[in-house]
């Protein structure tokens, strides 16, 4: 397995270079260094001299990919692409265009994101699986039909509606939790409750239906018939056998997103005033801050690759027959 993981890690290097190259090209197709300077310096009373100085100071006065004026390796190294990208492979994200330390921003902002995303993920997973199991348990009954209909209804509603509706009902009418905001440490609890509840509720429809489908497929298999023949109760069959055997498809969808929980959610964080990473990339795109954009895309790719590797590893744990080689 270690050889497999090393191989996967090595595969990650060209993927990350490719992602970086693509991000760089796409960003600079839309934004020129002049545009970036104007965005940072504002539109009032900005002189061409100020723009030139800003570009020089931030290193945006160099050619994008190839520096004809330089010698030797400098032709590659003395370019915007190299100078802004090479350090990232050492996880040194440098400074944003407005002078803030990006690594520090990320480490500060990922905790509030996690405070929302992790409980939403865990509680949601437990709830969805159990709800799907209950629907499976009562399959082809009124409860199952109502459950499926409820799932379809919940799936059809926009997540924005859940947020606004939840804030209106729980915070505005019932005054149970603050509408928005955040506090550090244990005080974060009352701020986190509502976004977590809304996050879980908004995911019930799609996730529970998906898990129900997986469980129903498993219910028709021989080992279930055998278990029943041995006299196991229906809940026993479901929770002890079906759930265990349905782990591979569940893990496929679940483990890959675990590392991405750090990245937060734009909509939730925006509406609830959570100072997480969710809006960091969008704000950076709007502010044309390439340093942040490349750092966040790089981090996202890295976490996604990590998620895929974790998924592979989790297969071996869920099913001893799986071998990574």
């Amino acid at each position, binding site marked *: 397995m270690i050889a497999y993981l090393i191989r996967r890690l090595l595969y990650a290097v060209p993927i990350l270079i490719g992602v970086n190259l693509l991000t760089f090209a796409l960003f600079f197709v839309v934004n020129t260094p002049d545009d970036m300077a104007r965005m940072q310096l504002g539109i009032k009373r900005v002189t061409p*001299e100020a723009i030139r100085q800003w570009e020089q100071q931030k290193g945006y006065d160099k050619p994008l990919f190839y520096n004809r004026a330089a010698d030797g390796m400098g032709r590659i190294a003395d370019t915007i692409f190299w100078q802004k990208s090479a350090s990232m492979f050492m996880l040194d994200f440098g400074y944003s265009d407005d002078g803030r330390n990006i690594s520090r921003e990320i480490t500060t902002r990922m905790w509030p994101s996690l405070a929302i995303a992790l409980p939403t993920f865990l509680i949601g997973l437990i709830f969805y699986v159990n709800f799907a199991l209950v629907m499976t348990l009562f399959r082809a009954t009124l409860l199952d039909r109502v459950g499926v209909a409820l799932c379809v209804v919940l799936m059809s509603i926009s997540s924005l509606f859940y947020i606004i509706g939840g804030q209106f009902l729980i915070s505005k009418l019932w005054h149970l939790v603050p509408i928005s905001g*955040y506090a550090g440490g244990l005080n974060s609890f009352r701020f986190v409750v509502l976004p977590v509840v809304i996050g879980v509720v908004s995911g019930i429809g799609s996730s529970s239906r998906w898990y129900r489908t997986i469980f129903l497929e498993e219910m028709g298999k021989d080992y279930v018939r055998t278990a029943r023949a041995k006299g196991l109760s229906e809940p026993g069959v479901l929770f002890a056998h079906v759930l265990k055997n349905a782990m591979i498809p569940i893990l496929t969808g679940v483990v890959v997103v675990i590392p991405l929980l750090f990245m937060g959610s734009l909509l939730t964080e925006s509406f609830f005033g959570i100072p997480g990473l969710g809006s960091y990339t969008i704000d950076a795109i709007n502010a044309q801050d390439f340093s942040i954009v490349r750092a966040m895309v790089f981090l996202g790719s890295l976490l996604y690759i990590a998620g895929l590797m974790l998924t592979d590893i989790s297969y071996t744990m869920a099913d001893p027959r799986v071998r990574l080689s």
Partner: protein
Amino acid sequence: MKRLAAYLTMLLLAACDGGLWNNPYPARDAGRSILYTAFTERPKHLDPAEAYSENEYAFLANIYAPPLQYHYLKRPYQLVPLAASEMPLVTYQDSQHHVLPDYAPKIAYSVYEIHIKPGMHYQPHPAFAKDEQGRPQYDHLAPAQLQGMHAPGDFLHSGTRVVTAADYAYQIRRLANPLLHAPIYGVMSEYILGFKDYAQALQDALKKNPEGHLDLAAYPLPGVEVVDDTTYRITIRGKYPQFAYWLAMPFFSPMPEEAERFYEQPGMKERNLTLDWWPVGSGPYYLSENNPNRRMVLTKNPYYDSEHYPSTGDAGDVEAGLLHDAGKMLPLTDRVVFTLEKETIPYWNKFLQGYYDASGISSDSFDQAVQVSTGGEASVSDEMRKKGITLSTSVATSTLYTGFNWLDPVVGGSSERARKLRQAISIAVDFEEFISIFANGRGVAAQSPIPPGIFGYREGKAGINPVVYDWVDGQPRRKPLSEAKRLLAEAGYPNGVDERTHQPLVINLDTTSSGAGEKSRLDWLRKQFNKINVQLVVRSTDYNRFQDKIRRGDTQMFYYGWNADYPDPENFLFLLDGAQGKVAHGGENASNYSNPEYDMLFEKMKNMENGPERLAIIDRMLEIIRNDAPWLWGYHPKNYVLQHSWLYNVKPNVMANNKLKYWRVDPKLRTRYQARWNQPVLLPLWLGGAALLAFVIWMWRALQKRDETR
């Protein structure tokens, strides 16, 4: 499992801090003199040399103390001393630096002598901390000593010192620092004596030693002279009365050199410990918490003792209770908590729950908050009145306009044809309707670039744009469409068709507007053009391309706006000065308008003192541009602010950004109202719990029944 239960119990206990369940603030803060407000966008810069936008000044203007400020209560806006002990003493000189009388025709230099109040102190800050030998406590720090330091408050020691005239001079030098990109460097280099050469010297020094310390004091700057500890002089070229307005901006605040040295130490920048992140000021507040992703907190500067609440104001201020705190030491609140609210819905709801002391009004909430009488007067709705909420309105010193590109062969230029075409469009586009539909009536249709409250703006018949309006029954009335059609026909486009080509007239509007919300505005604009049978094509583009088009003059019409730097007509009329042409000179005249007479009058008017002679020139300038119609004059937006009954001394002042020090809250009253409005409703929780329990029991029994039947 036990650990998990214990952890959850701890969380619940932490959540129950004895306050209201939906209170976003800690219960221990209830009853304290804290002002709660919000910000919607994180500030980019907090260095007074770099910051220039409104959202940055919302903080900076309360942290730094420049020499002057705007009187909080008096209108029209008037400058008064802040850190200065009196208004600057201005003397005029000839080219040999001989003193001239004030009315001298040729003034080569103006010398502003500024005396600052003695004994003013900076906020507490580690940069001022001294050890037992009187040496700086935190000089030459090793990076290891910065372990765990992320804010000035993390340092064990702090200190203060007296503000000196040298600090003000130092900050002016910083405006030329090429590493700081001060936005007003360009303007100041035109005026402050020797500023350009000084900036060049700094640039040369930086080129020689890019990594080294740039010693700003090592190079001569003849335009700035420190006379003694409390006096300094600024020499500017020619006469520029507007310079005094710049002295009311944070650009001209004092900057202690040791603060720069403190932040320049290795390891500081990596921890976001920079002057651009943690300001060091001598104003009424200092930034005690800086998390622009969540909240920023201003705390009363314990050493600020040089200012009192004004004892005079405008007529009606006494009756409005605005002089109740006259003579009291400022600031009147101990802390100001700014919370980041990106979305309007939570912001509005928290205001209604009493968790923000004041709020603007978004379009979504307008009908809930405001009712407009048949006479057009706005007041709060009954729902708001019951809560004790009051409304204050003011016209912003801004103008939102639609420009014609003077360089365009169809709509631009000084030909009679193009002028009549522009005039016809000016009549057809009904901005009163626009304000009513899209701004909920929050605006004043513009008659020229000059908004109300600025010298040169005239009320009544004398102030209307006679090209677009008639004066009927004591009110301006937009000319009928027949007049627009007549002008269009005279321009060579009868019924919207080009006489020469027999093709319909098509005009392009460049805009960055996109999305569903903007579509209705653009549809409305198309409809306005259709009224005179002119086709409008909207060319939506992204912000960068739009700015690029404006710079290249590759537009026909475009949306634009201007927010005043200072309340002087020069700051609006220069937007149409030929020397400011965007394409030719890279200036602020985005429509590239050029009229020799206007330019000549502008040169004459710009440095004059307000008076009848200046007013006569402005009148003539307005007459010229109204006739030339280089803009659809658009409108001046109105600010609507709602405030709770526990907030006092709120008077709209669109020029002053340092208003917070005057505001006072009654925290006890606020706590009472908050408790009345926010009692938790527990019934849904009980019902939900009961329903869940019933479901579990039902399920349990159903399973048992199923097992029995098997």
